[in-house]
């Protein structure tokens, strides 16, 4: 790469951060407000149609943000792994008057199905919202926004470093697994043979990671991590724009209306 290319990279950091998509560029805090308001709408309803509609809306937002397909896959997996079981258990086990399908000692009842639909869609609207948030807001942007409103850079260090540590330790685990095989420790075979390999694999990974914290602490200290003064940031996160502000206000109104409506039994 030439120096011009480096200059181009540097220029990018001078500009406010943009991901080239109106939805993705919404300020993370406005995003929290918006998604929370939608979840509240879903939960305030006594039926199952509204939460289901909100869930569908989440999918729509994901498509607008250009993350549709991967979000859809994630959320469908959640529906199958969580939603279906929640629904099936309730449909089967909640006792009711109107028996639809008798199955020996238990029975599928209309009440069970209604209870199941309501509960499942409510849980899934929360799942859908949380998953959507993390699908379209990167941890890095979120922490940056939080630092802006006074959260300590140390807090964001802990959160961001955790993600990296999970990746790093996972990689070390595979190397150590090889190292212990190479030493003659059997890692294939019946469950007892494999269980004996567990500690020799896990201990070097954990001990190395723990002893490395000492060096990490010194290395980051050398980079003024413990400097008590104000920290600045290379990444230029746009402050809340007018659109963001409108979104926050709108969210509050919608949420308040939904709660009132829910209490009054509108929907």
């Amino acid at each position: 790469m030439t120096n011009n290319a480096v200059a181009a990279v540097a220029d990018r950091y001078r500009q406010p951060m943009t991901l080239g998509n109106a939805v993705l560029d919404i300020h993370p805090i406005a995003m929290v407000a918006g998604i929370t308001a939608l979840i509240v709408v879903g939960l305030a309803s006594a039926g199952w149609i509204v939460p289901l509609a909100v869930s569908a809306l989440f999918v729509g937002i994901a498509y607008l943000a250009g993350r549709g397909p991967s979000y859809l896959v994630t959320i469908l997996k959640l529906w199958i792994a969580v939603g279906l079981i929640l629904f099936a258990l309730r449909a089967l086990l909640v006792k009711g008057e109107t028996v639809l399908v008798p199955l020996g000692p238990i029975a599928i009842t209309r009440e069970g199905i209604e209870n199941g639909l309501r509960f499942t869609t409510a849980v899934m609207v929360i799942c859908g919202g949380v998953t959507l948030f993390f699908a379209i807001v990167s941890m890095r942007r979120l922490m940056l926004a939080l630092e802006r409103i006074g959260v300590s850079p140390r807090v964001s260090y802990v959160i961001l470093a955790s993600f990296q540590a999970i990746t790093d330790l996972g990689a070390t685990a595979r190397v150590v697994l090889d190292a212990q095989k190479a030493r003659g420790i059997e890692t294939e075979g019946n469950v007892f043979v494999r269980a004996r390999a567990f500690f020799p694999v896990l201990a070097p990974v954990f001990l190395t990671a723990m002893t490395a914290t000492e060096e990490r602490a010194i290395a980051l200290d050398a980079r003024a991590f413990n400097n008590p003064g104000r920290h600045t940031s290379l990444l230029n996160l746009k402050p809340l724009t007018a659109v963001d502000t409108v979104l926050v206000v709108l969210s509050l109104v919608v949420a308040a209306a939904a709660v009132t409506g829910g209490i009054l039994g509108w929907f």
Partner: protein
Amino acid sequence: MVLAALTGVGFTYAYAEQPALVGIDLQLEEGRLHGVVGLNSSGKTTLCSLIRGVIPHFHHGDLTGEVVILGRPLLDWDPAELSRTIGCVFDNPFTQISGIRETVFEEIAIGLENLGVPRDEMIERVESVVEQLGIEAIVEKNPNELSGGQRQKVAFASIIAMDAPVVVIDEPTSQLDPEASEAVFEIIEGLKHRGKSIVLAEHKIDLLAQYADTITVMNEGTVVMHGPTRDVVGSDEFGAYGVVPPEVTELGRRLAAAGKPLDRLPIKRAEAFDEISVRIGRSTHAH
């Protein structure tokens, strides 16, 4: 000014049975490249930690004697200020990457962010360091996916960007191949030319002989030799403390032992070349 002045310094790590440093008297000048050599656990790393203030502010233990860094007693320094004044780079390329940034450019900027440097100045400084170290090709890479050698260079860049007047470096090449090691030494020499003071603990004596101004030899926690590189490496005593002399120096010694001494004992490759070609020239003249 004097970079570091140690008088009768001893240090024992908490819970250690034996002292790591004993009765050290040492004075290191500013603006030079000081090499520190010695066997494993001879006290090199402890000495570096002391000059950097990691001892006693981070590693606890029993510190005796007097340590003065840049004219001020070590214990009078505020740890945060000391970390701004003395940068440090050490041997493990993996623990020196923060793990919280997504590109090398952002990684190098962390120290400047913590110092509260304004964004425009930060970007300029990172850009200039990238150019100095010749790491243009990796600025957009994820620092967590680099090779050991690349990580080591990024660790250097991060410290250089902070522009500390002193840099303490502990075995920066122990995990690097010869080409990468040579590159790291060239970076260090560049630092010296820009007026930085450098303390460098290292095993690769061939490289130290090429680049260092002074050499300190440590043995069992104490300084056994200290002086200009030529005097120390060329001394007969040098090999006695377990340090392998540069191959060309060994060649010079063996030639002397074989009754064919060179005029001057070489410690660098170029010197050996010159000395021996003079010898060959003379012997061809004689014939």
